[in-house]
């Protein structure tokens, strides 16, 4: 019995790896995706172009401008002398923000009244507008604290000292890149497994193995193990790159990480095999894989928090294995979770894996038309 299984597994690896084109597909695109995501995907803003409309033209106002221009977040690209150009600069996306200092700025400052400063941001991208306002607010708050201190003013009532655990600089790369581990593992596993049954259906070899004494369970194991191995190997490559190339710390235990990765890959393999058994051609299988892939990424919390989603959609995410593995991967990279802490995620993925693999095995024979 073991010999038959082994033959199935060897055959599966050979069909995937013997052809130089499909070998290239396994190595090239994931690496490119990793690089693109790793460098491009970030919530942090740097070098935000801004213009200054300084109506005060005093040394105090120039200090404030210097605080902005000197911060790594902002980059001054224009100086305005009239309000007319503000709109055209923003419309043409030459600047994302305009710092408008009122002519009464110095006067109010020296008379201990709140000095008026206006920040105009491009609200078309609401996400970055909020971030820009946040950064601008930080700069102005620290400037006014500074002023109060040096001019003997009253200290503010409370001073907020914030400290972020696990990601002290709140570097969003540390949040996104571990997510890519899950993302790429899912993409590769789904493609390798999702096409495998459909490819054999197209070639007629699936009928050929169905008439051999191999049992559906043998075929199921023979089909899923190679997908599992390839998914885990690809996942490991991304894990290594995340740690050594993108310098994301790997604090947690590898055992916890790989338990999660294994259960996740098993669940994705089951889903891929289900899609593949339902499809009659590789084209249908590919379409099916993408129909699953896109919502599963959006509903995973990869980019947007699940807590922000409508309640009904939040229930839907329970069916999404990627949702759970993201918790595991992020926890393991930045924290030191114990097995007990991750148990709910493990259990959910194990359940999804069992159901999807069983369904796939049942569909093999059912869908033999």
């Amino acid at each position, binding site marked *: 019995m073991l010999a038959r299984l082994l*033959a*199935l597994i*060897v*055959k599966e690896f050979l*069909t995937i790896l013997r052809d130089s084109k499909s070998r290239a597909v396994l190595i090239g695109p994931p690496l490119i995706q990793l690089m693109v995501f790793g460098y491009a995907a970030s919530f942090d803003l740097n070098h935000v172009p801004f213009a200054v409309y300084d109506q005060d033209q005093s040394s105090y106002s120039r200090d404030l401008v210097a605080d902005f221009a000197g911060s790594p977040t902002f980059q001054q690209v224009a100086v305005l002398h009239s309000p007319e150009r503000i709109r055209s600069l923003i419309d043409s996306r030459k600047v994302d923000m305009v710092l408008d200092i009122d002519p009464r700025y110095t006067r109010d400052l020296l008379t201990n009244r709140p000095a008026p400063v206006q920040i105009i941001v491009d609200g078309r991208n609401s996400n970055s507008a909020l971030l820009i306002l946040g950064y601008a607010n930080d700069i102005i708050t620290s400037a006014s604290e500074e002023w109060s201190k040096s001019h003997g003013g009253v200290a503010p009532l409370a001073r907020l000292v914030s400290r972020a655990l696990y990601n002290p600089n709140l570097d969003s790369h540390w949040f996104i890149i571990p997510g890519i581990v899950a993302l790429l593992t899912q993409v590769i596993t789904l493609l390798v497994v999702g096409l495998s049954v459909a490819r054999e259906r197209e070639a007629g070899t699936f*009928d050929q193995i*169905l*008439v*051999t*004494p191999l049992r559906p369970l043998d075929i199921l194991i023979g089909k899923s193990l190679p997908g599992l191995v390839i998914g885990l190997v690809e996942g490991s490559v991304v894990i290594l790159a995340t740690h050594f190339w993108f310098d994301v710390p790997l604090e947690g235990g590898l055992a916890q990480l790989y338990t999660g990765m294994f259960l996740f890959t098993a669940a994705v393999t089951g889903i891929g095999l289900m899609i593949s058994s339902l499809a009659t051609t590789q084209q249908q299988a590919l379409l099916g894989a993408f129909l699953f892939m896109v919502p599963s990424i959006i509903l995973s919390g990869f980019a947007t928090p699940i807590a922000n989603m409508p309640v009904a959609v939040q229930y839907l995410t329970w069916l999404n294995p990627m949702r759970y593995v993201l918790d595991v991967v992020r926890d393991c990279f930045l924290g030191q979770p114990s097995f007990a802490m991750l148990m709910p995620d493990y259990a959910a993925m194990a359940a999804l894996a069992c159901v999807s693999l069983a369904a796939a095995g049942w569909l093999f024979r059912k869908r033999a038309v």
Partner: protein
Amino acid sequence: MFAMANMPAPPEPAATPLRLAGVTKRFRIAKREITALGDVHAETSPGLVTGLIGPDGAGKTTLMRLVAGLLSLDEGRIEVFGTDVSTEALKVQGMISYMPQRFGLYEDLTVQENLDLYADLNGVPQADRSASYTELLHMTGLAPFTSRLAGRLSGGMKQKLGLACTLIRPPRLLLLDEPTVGVDPVSRRELWQIVDHLVRQAGMSVLLSTAYLDEAERCDEVLLLHEGQLIGSGQPEAFTQTMAGRSFHAHAPGVPKRALQAVLTATPGVTDALIQGEAVRLVLDEGTTPETIQPPGVSGLALSPVAPRFEDRFVDLLRAQNGAKPRAALSPPPSGGSSTAMRAAIEVAHLTKRFGAFTAVDDISFTVKRGEIFGLLGANGAGKSTTFRMLCGLLPATGGQLKVDGYDLRRAAAAARGRLGYMAQKFSLYGDLSVLQNLHFFAAAYGLRGARRNERINWALSEFELAPFADATSRDLPLGFKQRLALACALMHEPDILFLDEPTSGVDPLARREFWQRINALAEGGVTVLVTTHFMDEAEYCDHLVIMAQGRILATGTSEALKHAARSSALPDPTMEDAFIALIHADSGQEQAA
């Protein structure tokens, strides 16, 4: 013009529909260069049907596409009515119509809408349309079906609609690429009538490609292609005539037909030996007289002369090219089956299969005896593939009983499948794996191990002469070798029952003969063979036949009995195809009467 410099090209009248001079086309597939056409010189005559005859991979479609200006030539020159295709492709395309193998019908449009679409695409003026529609619909017999969706037509009707769409703008030269492939014999005859009509009435020149050698006899002239080489051209009668006096029916009292065929194939002086009904059809080497045929161990051999066929000449030409005759099949007779010899190999009773409202197989019953070659014949959609798949356990039956070696394979334990071998229509192999890896996989899948496994793999490599290709990627094998490998994989575990689904479609006549020799040897050794085929002459090799149409069994019996039933004063010696058509006609007549 420089390509013409080294070859004399005497000026010819421009009426020559097609002139090929040194036509060469090469393809690169996976770092190997394949010559699809090598230095082909030929000319066709106006107002005739020119047949482009050859098996799959001979270069027929490549030549068609070159003539239609869809591919560019590597060397040589093609002229259509004196116009060079390479330099004036548009002008040539104005003179021809090309119907590819899979004509681009829009399956979600009706017959009429398809015609309108192709009339629009070809810029046929509105005023001319109704007259040409009427004629085309009448000619193709599609007039009652104008509002039917093209996707709902039968295979033969689709081909006729494709032909009608191709003919909306009547061309001077019509190119038809395998119009009769996958079409049942009745529709095949109708398509041929249309082509004949076009040539006679409209004076059109037709270039028609086909892999069916019996169709060559219906052409006015033929070009024979094999592996990209033109191996003959001329009138089919002339080809057939060269074989006069070389074809015989052989009988020997007390010698079973398969044994006789095996012995005769190996006898010196014999070009070809085929089973035809109860006799063996012999073609002798050139210059050999019937008296000199002395097969060892056979006494009382009686030879009676029969009319030569086109296929005889084709085989003769191929033998001359390939040199050696295939060795006699040496398959060892399988040992199994003795204890269960009395049990029928396959029993089918009241088997029914419905897909929704459509009944694909309608209450059929038959029994296959052990050691028999049993043929399942029928047009596309007759239900033979569905029956076949149910027998293999690939498809659940809606009703009725079926037993293969005593088991319903859909329900029986996996081990029961170990008794049967299965070879699918498309030679289902793992294309990315090497020959040896395929053999290893199927050996393991059938549970062979250790010394036994090595022994069987070595048997396959030597018996099927696959050893030189052991490390070659299966996808790149020539078609004939793919077929051998598929059969080797199916025989790995020495099955008692062998299922073959259209096992010879597309392979050349020599490979088909070799294949049937092996099958015959297996049957002699006690293996039960169930085969579906659409080659009517292959039906002659079967001991027992079932002819299916529209999910029902029209007739069962030996090929002799079926042919005998079709005999009439008009057809004193009907072929298997005649018998098939007579059955279909009788059936549809009954239906109309009912």
